[in-house]
Structures are given as structure tokens and as C-alpha cells.
């Protein structure tokens, strides 16, 4: 038996890397056959090359390994999973699977040939390995800094923000003796403070990283030494080339190539949860040649690619005993994985320390900039030009003044240009008219520097942290099923959540649970729907006795009793035989690994089917329920318990699922030495390989069943079988063996072989799996649409499935007009698109309403499939598609490839200024998540790829409603107000300073003393705006959920726009004038001194600024009270402290001036007169032009909801707090 086994049993799971052989190894394989058997797969080398030029992401992948993006990581990820749903196509396929991914592989394989790009590892000979070039040791450093490099590097990091550079320039200017407006040290203080705080934070984080590095580096591993024994070695001392032994449940210390395992066939199971978060077990293999060796004598050479980030790909050759073997991603185990279910494994270290793929991948999510911040830049530019204008005015006036007093300057008592103290009478501190003007300009920049609110940048960061904290802690965003909290992975786009206009959603795993449940089967043309049987709710629980112990599958499946009876019955008749084959196919044709799990009851063990595809798991559990229980799988054989009878099948070959074939097959050697091929795959490709001559009726009825299943929203698979005779098998076997050992183009060869053998298959039947909708999805979609958000669903599913899910999720309603574009060639596609556009325009114009956010009866739903998108995207028709789509209220794209998803997102993103949000859960959504303005990952079944690349991650789709409608709204309102307020706050101070300059002969004396103006944005007014920015709520939670329409305030930029900015600035001008002039007039011709009037202005400004904020606070918490009134008190205290220093000229000024009634009368007058216009305008706006928010706020106040409900004008959405609690 073993001798018949091919050398390489597993299909090597190399990815697309080697699709196209540069050397035609198997010319006997007729090319015409392979291309005719499958229209999609082969489109030729020349096409691939052409695509390569276009596909920037691909070319960058091949040009530099280190820059390999997450794109390319994900690209190869899903290839090895069997899943017919198109949602798992590899990402590299560009807009329609024309082989874009192949081009990547071509360049990769060419490159691989060269020795200089390879890393040579001599097995068990670290000295020789590290001889010519010292590889990195296995010690890792996630810490950024060391004690020596901390200060320069941290400063460098911090000064990458432009605001800090501005700060620095101001501080440097202040060091020039001619310009010293403020005391030299005072001017450095704010910058130093900010740098220090950030530095301490960074240092603390780095210290923690240092500690965890230390722990990690000092872990122990067994390493083989020369005398053949194993010694414990610290992780950091492991070197490339050394052989490491890992025991069960141990973590792998570095990337190792497996040499042998406790399993005689060389299988090892690993858990990659630390690497990619997927909890299922993955199989890794040791090569037969090394696995059979008597340990521990290994000599050999591994030639592998340079370290790169692709955790799903690995390419290497191994020369051992003169034989050359090729290694793929199934032969390498990466650092951070855990060995499971295998008592030991031996491997040679190939990548160590920071070369390991885990370390290379440990970079964070890409940074995005929020729209509000981008918009803010415009206002910053306006403020800057305003600043320049102020400085220009000041210096021009100063110039005129100097010119007019030119003759008097020498002896003017307050100028005294001439210096008589030295024998030679000279000009004192006078550099000529021109330079004086220039210096005045620079000085005025220093004095007015706070016009650019640098504190704002820091405040925004702090507020975002606060907002993120509240989002994370919100129990409405907490998923109990998976015990996962909301994750804020990007800290700087919180407020974008309040302005979303488009939501692009994946279907599987996002709208649906991705918990597959086997529902019905069509076997041999007979429909066995479990729907009828469901009434009893019978749960198939099948169990077998092994060694006196009961073995049960972990998941229970609803069974059809009729089918169960048939399955149990003998195999005599034709029907029974087909049913037997059908379930055998379900049980065997997969990559499921059964795991035996202990239960509290020692006699009962559970069988847990570990697999990468939930569909496969569902099918395997279903087969088990019908009595075909997969008990054991090694690389060589499968043990299946069929109604208590244990049968061992040899797995002779496995053709893995790939997205072009959309099917997988397994070749089984029966105990009676007959050989059978089982195929399962998507209907589109399966019907191409089915032997149509056999039974037309059977195919027809199966097709009918498939159609009815998919219109129920079920995912379907077609199962086929073929008996191989000896010659067929021999031909296949030879080719397969040769292909498996081929060094180059292995994947392409294997694909050819599989296409060859998967032909003329006889149909067995079809299975249907239900993908359940997640809880609350219909309500969530309804809420989002009421909020004026357009929801687009992008799915890999079939059109019928997608539409039926669309209905059940309330995305589609019956009164919508469906526009379906579904065409296979370019010409008809264009025509379809044009027709659809015309039709929809007509529809829209007849009803006259172009908007779709209200309860407009006539709505259009666009349903378009991936095939058509291939022809539309990236062509001149994109624009038409966009126009069509913008007329539609719902867009449903089915059968789309991952990169097409990104293409659709960019279609919208590039053409509108509207914000887009993409939500998805799988690796296939990564491109879309990264493309959209806001990417949300669902931490669900399909691993953590989506989460890793997302900005926010959460457990369920329905959390989108509280996230956007509540948190998004709040974040946006808070931050929008905060930015405006900060502009105002700083501009008021600058203007007060400016007005005073007009009365000091334009010499930039500041009445407000330098300490106060420095502390102004640190102590006097900083905290209230931050606290209000974190805590204030314009509307309550329930109101926001009750009226999703309120969300559109963010879409309309209501909280931050140019009009508001200008209004705020006008108010600023008025307020600064009220602060400045009344004291001026009141103290004109009086004995008032600089410090006293300065104190009055300081205090008036601070009180005013804080009261201004208080006027706009909607909800007063005790914290708000504390911080606003506290700031005013703190200002008084600070001013008193400053005035109690005898060394300052203004000594005791505050106490002196505040003892007069005039001071307090002025203060009161200033505050009230300054706020009067604001109050008037605010009231007029709120009362006569009320915004929706204002009305709702009032309604919230008087709780008028009941009346509204009776009027029936607002549809009460069934999402409430109570329901969310479930």
C-alpha cells in the first residue's frame, strides 16, 4: 500500500507563486484540452504579463519583498481552502479573474532561480550557515528605542508632525536677542511640555515592550547539538541552521522547516492563533525523505527565499542525500504558532528573530486622516494668512511710526536710540529702518503665534482617545457570543464615523453568521429537503463506540428522517448506492482534520472537525449525522466509520480548491483497491465537467433543485464522482508524482493535471447549506437606510442567493424596481448598462424625486454581477455605472472578486466627496476595507485578516447602528465643535494682543504677561474643551436610535463648515473688541499700569472663553461644572501667584486693581456685552431656524415621543436599548 503512495501525498499548498512553468515539463499534456475544459483558468502567459504592468500592487510585490503589502499576503491566503463561494477568491485576481494573479507568480518564479536572492541554510550546521553571512539571531526587539537612542529617535518621531516644527521655529525665533519678546525660557516651555509628556508616554510603552521582549527572548527550546542530544537553549540563542525540537503545546521559537514529526507520515498540526487569529488547526508536513530518517543525523542544504512578510507563502528547495526536493508553505511552521495534537516535531530554523514572518508582519494598521482634519487644514491656512496679515499690519504701522518719529528717536525718553555710555556715541539696538521692520514682523509672529492653535492638535488626540475609550467600553458594541469588545485600531478617524454616506458590506460572515448549517440535499435527482422534517426538530445525533468509548460529532445537524433511513439501509439498490457515494464524498472530499476532544464524561468523546472552510465543516458534520463519520485523517489515509463499520481509504491524491476551478477533488483508494475520484464544487464549473451523455433528466432535476435552493438563500455545492480504471490512474499518478516534485511551476502543473482528471464526472447530487442571517441585520439595515446611508452589498454568492438574502435582510423590498445587469461579454454589458441608466433616469424623472433617504415609494435596486463588472470597471463605463448607482437606493453586487470590491469602493470614493465605509470579515474583504475611508472588520469566523487591516473591529454587523448613529454622531459633533471653539479661543487672545499693540507705538508690548499668555492654552482654557469634547452629548442615545435621520447632520457637514467658521470668526472679532476697548476707555487718562490692565484682560478673556463654552454645553455633568468653573478659579489663582512674585514688574497688580469697583464692573460688563450677540444669534437660529438636532433636543426634553408615534409619521424602528441587550 505504501509503495503505491506517491512521494508527495499532499498537494503542495504553494499558492499562485508558480503558476506558469518556464520549462514545459509535461509536453504530453495537451494544451488544447486543458484550455477547453475550463474557459476561465488559462488565458495565456502573454495576458498575464500585460496585466502585470497594469497592476501596481502586484508589480510592487515582486519588485521588493520587504515592501510586500498586506494585499499580497492576503492574496494567497484563501487558495487552499475549499469553498465554492466566490467570496473566497484570491485577491490577486484583478477585477474579474483574468489571471492577474498569475503574472505575479511568473515574476516570482523567475526571480527564485537566482542564487543571490536565496538564503542558504545548511541543516544542523549553523557555523557553515552563518559563515559567509551572519543571519540575525533569534533575539527579537519590538522595542523602538534603547537608552542611548531614545532621545534623538523619539524627538525625530515627534517632530514629524508639522505643528511641532512650527512650535520649534517659534521657540528658536524667540532665542534671537533682537526678538526676545517673551522670556527665552518661557517660550520653550509649551513645546518642552508637550515633548516631555509624549516622550514619557513613549518611554513607558517602550519599557513594557522591552520587558516583553526579555521574557520572549529568554524562553527555552530544545536544540540539537553535535553529539546528537538535545539541550535547552534560550530562544535568543537559536541560530539559523540549528535543529529545534518542539513538543505538544509549545510555541515555535522561529520559522522552521519541518524535518520529521511524531507522526510517521510527517504530519504536524499547528494552531496559528497568535499569527493570524484563526483558531482551527492547520496541517503542516515534513518531507518524506527527512521524516523517515533515523534521527538525529541530518545533513543537507535548504535554499529558500529571502525573508518576506507573506505568511501564506514559502518557497524553497532542499537538497538532501543528493535529492532535490521542493518546499512550500505547508512545510514551514512560523514563529508564534503552537504545536497541537502532535507529540513532537523536529525542524530546522530558517528564519530567526526579526527575519521571521511574524516579526515582519508586526506593523500596525495604515494611518488614515480624518476628513474633518483635512477640512480643518483649509481653515488653518485661512488663520495662517490672517496671522500674516496681522503681522504685516503691525510691521507696516511700525514702519510708518518710525519714519514719522525719525528725528526724535535719538533722545525720545522711551526710545533713546543713542547710547552715550561708551566713549563712542553709537546707535543702541537699532539696526536701520529696514531691519527694524523685519524684526518687528518676526516679533509679531512670535507674539501672535497662538493664532495657529497648536494645543488643538494635542487636544484632538486626547479627545479621540477618550472617545475611543467610550466606544470600546460601550456594552452595545460588546459581542457576548465571542466575548469581544469593540476595537479601535485607528485612533485618528473617530469622527469620520459620523459622516458616512455609503456602507459597503460583505455578505458572508458580515450580514450572515457564517455558521454553515447543512439544510438539504438533492441526491440522484431526488430532493431531500429537511424543511418537512424540521417540524419534528429532530436532531441527528450519531455516535459510535470505539474502544468502549462513545464518539460523537461536536455539532448536531438536523436530519431528514427519510434520508437517514435510506442512508442506513443496505447498499443494494441503485438509490442506496448513490446515497452511499454521496455521503462518502461529503465525508472524504475535504481537508477536514478530526480532533478528539474530551468531555467531562470520560466515556464520551467529541469529534471536532477542524477545517479552514465552514462549508466543509458543515458537510462533514452532516455526513457524520447520516452515519458517515470521519474519524481519522493522516496525509496518507482516511478512516471513516460507516454505520459502525470502520473503513480505511487511501488518499492517493488531493486537488485542492482554487478559485478558477471552483472545485476540489480527492482520489481515494478503496480497501478493495478500486480507485475513485470525488469532486465537489460550484455549479457553474461542475456542470462543465459532468458527463452530460449519462443522464440528462438527472442533470435537469438537479439543476432545478439547485435553483430552488439558491432562491431560498442557500449555498449550494454539486458533488460528482468518477471511477478511475487502472490506465487512467497510472497516467494520472505518473503525472501527479512528477508535478509534485517539480521545482518550478508546480501549481500550474497540478492545476493542469486536476483539470485533466476532473472530467466526465458522473453527478451524484447537490448539497445546500444555510448561511444564517446575523441577529438584528434587517433592523440595522433599515436604520442605516433611514439615516440616509446607502448600503451596498458586495458578495461572492450567486445572484439568486444574493437577491434572496437581500430580501430577508430587508435590503430589497417588494416595491423596488430591480435593475439587473448580468452579461458575459463587453458589448452586451455596455448595452445593458446604457439601457438601465436610461430606464432609471426615466423612472426617477417621472416621480420627480431624486433622493432616496425618505419614504419615497419608488426606489431602484441595482443588481450587478462580477462578470459584468469586469467589463465596466476600469473602463470609460465606470462613470455610467456610477451615475446609475447613484440613482439607485440599493446596489447589490454578486459574484465579485475581492479586488473588484475595492474597485467598487474606489468607484464611489473617487467620484464623490461622500464618506465610504466598508465592512467585512474575511481576507477577501481586506482590499475593500483598506480602500474605504473607514474600514470596519468583523471579528468572526473567517480569521482575523479583515480585523488586522481594519480601522475599527467589532463582533456583529448590527453594531454598525450604534457605532455610526450614536458614537459617530457624537464624535463628529463633539470634534467639529471643538475645532471651531479652539480656533475662536486662540483668535480672541491674539486679537486682544493685537488691539493693544495699536496703542504701544506698534512695538509688540503685551499687557497680558508672558506667563499668562503661555498658560492660557495650557491651564486657563485647555481642560474644559477637552472634557466637553469627550463627554458632551448633543442628543441622547435613544433619540438618536429613534430618529436615524438625525445622522444626516454629519453627512451635511452641519457641525463644521465654512459658514460656521466665518460666523465664529466674526463673533471672535466682536468679543475681542468688547474685551479690549471698554477697559481702554474706562482707564484712559488714569493711573492704570500695564500689569493691572493686563490682568483685567487676562481674566476677562478666560472667563469669556469659558462662558462661551458653557453656553454651548448641552449636558452638564458634574465633571463639566468642575472643569469649567475650576478653570476660571485656576486662572484667578495663577494670576494671583504670578502677581505675588516681586521680581516681576507687575508685582501685586492684581490685588491692587481688583480692590476697585471699576474692575468688577468692567468684568461683568465685558462678559455680558461680549456674549450678547452670540446669545441673540443662537436663539434666533434655534428658535426660528431650528435644526433637526435642536428640535429633537427639545423633544427629548419634554418627551413628546408618544404624540409623534400617534401621528404615525415616523416609522418606529424596532431597535431599542432593550432589544440590543439580548
Amino acid at each position, binding site marked *: 500500500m505504501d509503495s503505491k503512495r506517491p512521494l508527495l501525498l499532499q498537494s503542495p499548498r504553494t499558492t499562485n507563486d508558480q503558476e506558469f512553468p518556464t520549462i514545459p515539463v509535461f509536453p504530453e499534456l495537451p494544451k488544447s484540452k486543458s484550455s477547453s475544459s475550463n474557459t476561465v483558468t488559462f488565458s495565456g502567459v502573454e495576458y498575464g504579463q500585460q496585466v502585470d504592468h497594469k497592476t501596481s500592487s502586484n508589480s510592487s510585490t515582486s519588485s521588493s519583498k520587504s515592501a510586500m503589502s498586506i494585499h499580497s499576503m492576503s492574496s494567497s491566503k484563501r487558495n487552499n481552502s475549499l469553498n465554492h463561494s466566490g467570496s473566497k477568491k484570491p485577491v490577486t485576481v484583478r477585477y474579474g479573474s483574468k489571471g492577474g494573479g498569475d503574472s505575479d507568480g511568473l515574476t516570482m518564479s523567475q526571480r527564485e532561480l537566482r542564487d543571490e536572492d536565496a538564503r542558504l541554510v545548511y541543516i544542523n550546521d549553523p557555523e557553515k550557515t552563518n559563515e559567509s553571512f551572519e543571519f540575525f539571531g533569534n533575539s527579537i526587539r519590538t522595542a523602538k528605542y534603547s537608552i542611548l537612542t531614545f532621545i534623538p529617535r523619539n524627538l525625530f518621531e515627534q517632530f514629524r508632525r508639522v505643528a511641532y516644527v512650527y512650535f520649534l521655529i517659534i521657540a528658536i525665533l524667540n532665542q534671537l536677542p533682537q526678538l526676545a519678546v517673551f522670556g527665552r525660557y518661557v517660550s520653550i516651555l509649551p513645546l518642552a511640555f508637550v515633548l516631555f509628556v509624549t516622550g514619557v508616554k513613549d518611554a513607558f510603552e517602550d519599557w513594557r515592550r522591552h520587558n516583553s521582549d526579555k521574557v520572549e527572548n529568554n524562553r527555552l527550546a530544545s536544540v540539537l547539538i553535535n553529539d546528537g542530544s538535545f539541550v535547552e537553549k534560550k530562544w535568543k540563542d537559536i541560530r539559523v541552521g540549528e535543529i529545534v525540537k518542539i513538543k505538544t503545546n509549545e510555541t515555535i521559537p522561529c520559522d522552521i522547516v519541518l524535518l520529521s514529526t511524531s507522526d510517521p507520515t510527517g504530519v504536524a498540526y499547528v494552531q496559528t492563533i497568535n499569527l493570524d487569529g484563526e483558531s482551527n488547526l492547520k496541517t503542516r508536513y515534513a518531507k518524506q525523505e527527512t521524516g523517515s530518517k533515523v534521527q538525529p543525523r541530518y545533513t543537507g542544504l535548504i535554499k529558500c527565499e529571502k525573508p518576506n512578510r507573506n505568511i501564506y507563502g514559502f518557497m524553497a528547495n532542499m537538497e538532501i542525500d543528493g535529492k532535490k526536493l521542493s518546499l512550500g508553505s505547508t512545510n514551514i511552521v512560523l514563529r508564534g504558532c503552537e504545536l497541537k495534537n502532535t507529540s513532537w516535531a523536529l525542524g530546522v530554523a530558517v528564519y530567526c528573530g526579526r527575519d521571521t514572518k511574524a516579526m515582519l508582519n508586526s506593523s500596525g494598521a495604515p494611518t488614515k486622516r480624518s476628513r474633518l482634519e483635512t477640512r480643518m487644514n483649509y481653515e488653518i491656512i485661512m488663520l495662517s494668512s490672517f496671522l500674516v496679515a496681522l503681522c504685516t499690519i503691525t510691521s507696516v504701522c511700525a514702519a510708518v511710526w518710525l519714519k514719522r518719529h525719525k528725528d526724535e528717536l535719538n533722545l525720545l525718553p522711551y526710545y533713546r536710540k543713542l547710547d552715550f555710555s561708551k566713549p563712542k556715541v553709537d546707535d543702541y539696538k537699532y539696526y536701520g529702518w529696514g531691519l527694524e521692520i523685519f524684526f518687528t514682523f518676526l516679533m509679531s509672529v512670535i507674539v501672535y503665534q497662538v493664532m495657529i492653535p497648536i494645543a488643538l492638535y494635542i487636544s484632538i488626540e486626547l479627545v479621540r482617545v477618550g472617545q475611543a475609550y467610550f466606544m470600546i467600553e460601550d456594552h452595545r458594541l460588546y459581542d457576548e457570543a465571542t466575548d469581544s469588545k469593540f476595537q479601535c485600531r485607528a485612533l485618528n478617524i473617530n469622527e469620520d464615523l459620523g459622516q458616512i454616506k455609503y456602507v459597503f458590506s460583505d455578505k458572508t460572515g458580515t450580514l450572515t453568521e457564517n455558521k454553515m448549517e447543512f439544510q438539504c440535499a438533492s441526491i440522484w435527482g431526488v430532493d431531500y429537503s429537511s424543511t418537512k422534517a424540521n417540524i419534528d426538530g429532530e436532531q441527528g445525533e450519531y455516535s459510535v463506540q470505539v474502544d468502549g468509548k462513545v464518539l460523537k460529532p461536536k455539532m448536531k445537524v438536523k436530519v431528514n428522517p427519510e434520508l437517514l433511513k435510506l442512508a442506513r439501509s443496505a447498499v443494494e439498490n441503485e438509490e442506496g448506492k448513490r446515497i452511499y457515494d454521496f455521503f462518502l464524498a461529503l465525508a472524504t472530499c475535504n481537508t477536514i482534520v478530526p480532533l478528539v476532544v474530551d468531555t467531562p464524561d470520560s466515556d464520551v468523546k467529541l469529534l471536532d472537525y477542524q477545517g479552514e472552510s465552514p462549508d466543509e465543516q458543515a458537510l462533514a458534520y452532516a455526513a457524520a449525522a447520516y452515519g458517515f463519520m470521519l474519524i481519522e485523517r493522516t496525509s496518507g489515509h482516511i478512516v471513516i466509520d460507516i454505520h459502525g463499520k470502520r473503513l480505511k481509504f487511501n488518499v492517493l491524491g488531493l486537488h485542492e480548491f482554487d478559485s478558477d476551478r471552483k472545485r476540489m477533488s480527492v482520489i481515494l483508494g478503496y480497501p478493495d483497491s478500486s480507485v475513485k475520484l470525488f469532486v465537489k464544487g460550484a455549479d457553474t464549473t461542475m456542470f462543465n465537467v459532468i458527463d452530460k451523455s449519462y443522464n440528462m433528466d438527472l442533470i435537469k432535476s438537479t439543476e432545478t433543485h439547485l435553483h430552488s435552493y439558491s432562491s431560498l438563500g442557500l449555498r449550494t455545492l454539486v458533488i460528482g464522482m468518477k471511477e478511475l480504471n487502472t490506465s487512467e490512474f497510472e497516467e494520472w499518478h505518473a503525472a501527479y508524482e512528477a508535478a509534485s516534485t517539480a521545482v518550478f511551476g508546480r501549481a500550474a502543473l497540478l492545476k493542469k493535471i486536476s483539470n485533466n482528471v476532473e472530467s466526465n464526472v458522473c453527478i451524484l447530487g447537490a448539497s445546500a447549506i444555510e448561511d444564517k442571517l446575523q441577529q438584528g441585520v434587517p433592523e440595522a439595515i433599515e436604520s442605516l437606510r433611514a439615516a440616509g446611508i446607502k448600503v451596498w452589498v458586495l458578495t461572492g454568492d450567486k445572484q439568486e442567493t444574493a437577491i434572496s438574502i437581500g430580501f430577508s435582510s430587508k435590503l430589497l423590498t417588494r416595491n423596488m424596481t430591480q435593475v439587473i445587469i448580468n452579461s458575459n461579454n463587453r458589448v452586451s454589458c455596455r448595452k445593458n448598462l446604457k439601457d438601465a441608466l436610461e430606464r432609471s433616469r426615466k423612472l426617477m424623472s417621472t416621480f420627480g424625486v431624486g433622493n432616496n433617504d425618505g419614504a419615497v415609494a419608488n426606489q431602484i435596486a441595482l443588481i450587478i454581477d462580477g462578470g459584468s463588472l469586469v467589463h465596466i470597471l476600469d473602463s470609460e463605463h465606470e462613470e455610467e455605472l456610477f451615475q446609475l448607482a447613484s440613482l439607485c437606493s440599493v446596489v447589490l453586487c454578486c459574484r465579485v472578486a475581492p479586488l473588484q470590491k475595492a474597485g467598487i469602493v474606489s468607484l464611489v470614493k473617487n467620484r464623490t466627496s461622500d464618506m465610504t465605509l466598508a465592512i467585512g470579515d474575511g481576507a477577501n474583504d481586506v482590499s475593500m476595507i483598506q480602500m474605504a475611508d473607514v474600514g470596519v472588520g468583523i471579528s468572526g469566523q473567517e480569521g482575523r485578516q479583515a480585523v488586522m487591516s481594519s480601522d475599527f473591529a467589532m463582533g456583529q454587523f448590527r453594531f454598525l447602528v450604534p457605532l455610526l448613529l450614536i458614537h459617530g454622531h457624537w464624535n463628529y459633533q463633539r470634534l467639529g465643535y471643538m475645532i471651531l471653539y479652539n480656533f475662536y479661543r486662540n483668535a480672541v487672545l491674539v486679537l486682544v494682543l493685537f488691539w493693544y499693540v495699536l496703542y504701544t507705538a506698534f512695538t509688540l508690548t503685551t499687557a497680558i504677561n508672558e506667563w499668562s499668555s503661555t498658560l492660557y492654552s495650557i491651564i486657563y482654557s485647555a481642560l474644559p474643551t477637552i472634557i466637553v469634547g469627550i463627554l458632551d452629548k448633543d442628543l441622547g*442615545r435613544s433619540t438618536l436610535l429613534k430618529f436615524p435621520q438625525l445622522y444626516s447632520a454629519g453627512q451635511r457637514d452641519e457641525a463644521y463648515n465654512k459658514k460656521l467658521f466665518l460666523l465664529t470668526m466674526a463673533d471672535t472679532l466682536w468679543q475681542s473688541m468688547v474685551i479690549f476697548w471698554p477697559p481702554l476707555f474706562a482707564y484712559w487718562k488714569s493711573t492704570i499700569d500695564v500689569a493691572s490692565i493686563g490682568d483685567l484682560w487676562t481674566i476677562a478673556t478666560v472667563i469669556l472663553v469659558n462662558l462661551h463654552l458653557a453656553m454651548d454645553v448641552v449636558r452638564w455633568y458634574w465633571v463639566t461644572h468642575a472643569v469649567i468653573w475650576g478653570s476660571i478659579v485656576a486662572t484667578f489663582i495663577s494670576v494671583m501667584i504670578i502677581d505675588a512674585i516681586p521680581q516681576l514688574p507687575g508685582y501685586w497688580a492684581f490685588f491692587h486693581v481688583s480692590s476697585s469697583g*471699576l474692575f468688577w464692573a468692567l468684568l461683568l460688563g465685558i462678559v455680558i456685552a461680549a456674549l450678547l450677540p452670540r446669545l441673540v444669534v443662537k436663539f434666533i437660529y434655534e428658535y426660528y431656524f431650528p435644526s433637526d438636532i435642536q428640535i*429633537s433636543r427639545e423633544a427629548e426634553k419634554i418627551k413628546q415621543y408618544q404624540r409623534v408615534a400617534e401621528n404615525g409619521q415616523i416609522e418606529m424602528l424596532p431597535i431599542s436599548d432593550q432589544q440590543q441587550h439580548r
Partner: protein
Amino acid sequence: MDLDGGSSSTISTGARAIPGRPVRHGALYQFTQQNLPACKPVLTPAAVISTFLLMGFIFIPVGLVTLRASYSVVEIVDRYDIECVPEEYRSNKVAYVKDDSVSKNCSRFLKVPKSMRAPIFIYYQLDNYYQNHRRYVKSRTDRQLLHGLGYNDTSSCRPLESSDDLPIVPCGLIAWSLFNDTYKFSRGPSELKVNRKDIAWKSDRNHKFGKHVYPFNFQNGTLTGGAKLDPTIPLSDQEDLIVWMRTAALPTFRKLYGRIEEDLEADDVIVVNLKNNYNTYSFGGKKKIVLSTSSWLGGKNDFLGIANLFVGSFSILISIIFLVLHLKSPRPYGDTAYASWNKKSISS
């Protein structure tokens, strides 16, 4: 001003219904769920109208009171910088003031318009004199004022930092330009006693100007800026200097010279014998002598009262306008039927 407790109560009941979950109550939980009790004032028409009305009723009386205080102050202002220059020097006043040989004596006759109660403050007022000029303000050393020669860093006083290698005490432009006109007052035959003590802030005398710092080398330079100081009197008692060194905030300012501690009757004629020493002629500054009583408000100043009256009447006007508008076209308060999404669907 009700409490925002509505939503929090539903949540806590919801939480209680589900056992075995993380703690869903308590202050921290309410905080993390952003359900802290809050007060949420809303601008209602009634509140706004009454606020404006209230402000009117506060500001108008305050304005009246301040105006009255201002009117109660009797103030005599006399500009003497031109009159006190002899006719022959009028064309070249700078030469007059620089020429030490010419007598600077001058007499002014002030008629008291209304009776003035003691104390009557005597100020000198300078116009167009930028005591807040940056060069000027910076040209001093506060530590030296307190510590004298004990503090040597007088670099900020340049160009008047040292003479004969010793720091000038007090150094700097401000001290150098000390005002040096002097005034003597008489009513009829008798001299009016002027109290020149306590004209400077007590805090300055006690803590800012040294009790053992003597102006031993003051005004010794080639160019004399203003008054000389008696080197035997410590700085803490040089009250003119202390007053002068409190630099004025505005280009037109007054400085206290002394107090007359007798009442003056209406129609009294006060003779001021002054020495017109200080040179404001080189830059066209005006010099005035001011006799003024004071009120709680300070000196005579109508601005505040008028401003208060204006703000007060403006408030009342606005409150009336709002009241009329509110009565004519009231908006149903908090009726969501008026929200934009409802309006849209009604219209279409």
C-alpha cells in the same frame, strides 16, 4: 433643568434581567456608557426673553449709578506745557527746556468749579508718551531695585546700565526719564499743604524697592533724562520714582503727585507754582496738571455709565422684539413634525 436619567434607568433594568454578566451598574458603568446624570438646559423663549429683560433691569440702574458717581467727581485739568514757556521761546521749546540758565518757574491759576471734598488728588498727566513702548518697558531690572548692588546683571538696562564700571542704581530708561516737574499750591495768601507720602503702592514700597538701596550714582551721565534723586534716601522711600516705575498702560496717563487734605470751596482760586523742567517738547507730548476728587469708581469717567445704559436698553429692546415675535409666530416646542425629514415627506 431636569436630570438626564431616562435612558439610564431603562438600562439598569435591562441589565438586571440578565444574570451572570459583567457588572452593569454603578457609577463607573454609568460613566463608561456615558449615562452620567446630566442637566441639560435648553434655550426656551421664556428663559431667553426673561434673561434679556433681567439684564436690562440690571444694567440700566448700574449705568445710572456709575454715571452719577462719575458726575460727582470734580476734576480740574490744566494744560501748562505751552503756557509755561516764555513767549520768546515758543518757537523753540526744546532749547528752552534744555537751557539750565533759564528759570523754569511758572504760575497757573485754577478756579474751583464746585466744592471739592478732601482728599483731593493731584495728578500730572502726560499725553502721547509711550511708557508702554517695548524698548522702554524692558529697560529696567526689578532685582536691582530690590537688592541694589547685590544684583549685578543689569544688561537689560542698556543703554543706561553702568557708569564708571558700577551699575547705575536704579538703572534703565524708565528710571532715567523720571518726571521732574514740581508743583506748589496756594489758596489766596496761604500755602496749601500737599501730602506727598503714600502716593505709591504700599506693596511696591515694602517688597519691590529696597530699603537699603541708595541711588548713589543716579543721573551722572552725559545726558540727563529727568529728575535726580537724593542719594541719602533709600529707594523704598523715593515714592515719585516708585510711581513713575509703574509704567502706564496707555499712551495718555496720569501719575499721582500728592494729595491736598483740605476741602476746596467753589470759586476758590488755586495758584500753582510749578517748575517746568520735564522735556516733552522734543516729541510733542502734552503736560497737564489735574486736581480731582474720587468716587468708588475712581476718577471722572462717563464711559462705563453710558455703556451700561446702552447694553441695558439694548437688552430690553431685544427682549421686547423676541416677545413680539414669539407671540406672533410661536413655534411648537420640540415637535419633531417640524424636523426636516418630516417636512420633506409632507411636501412630496
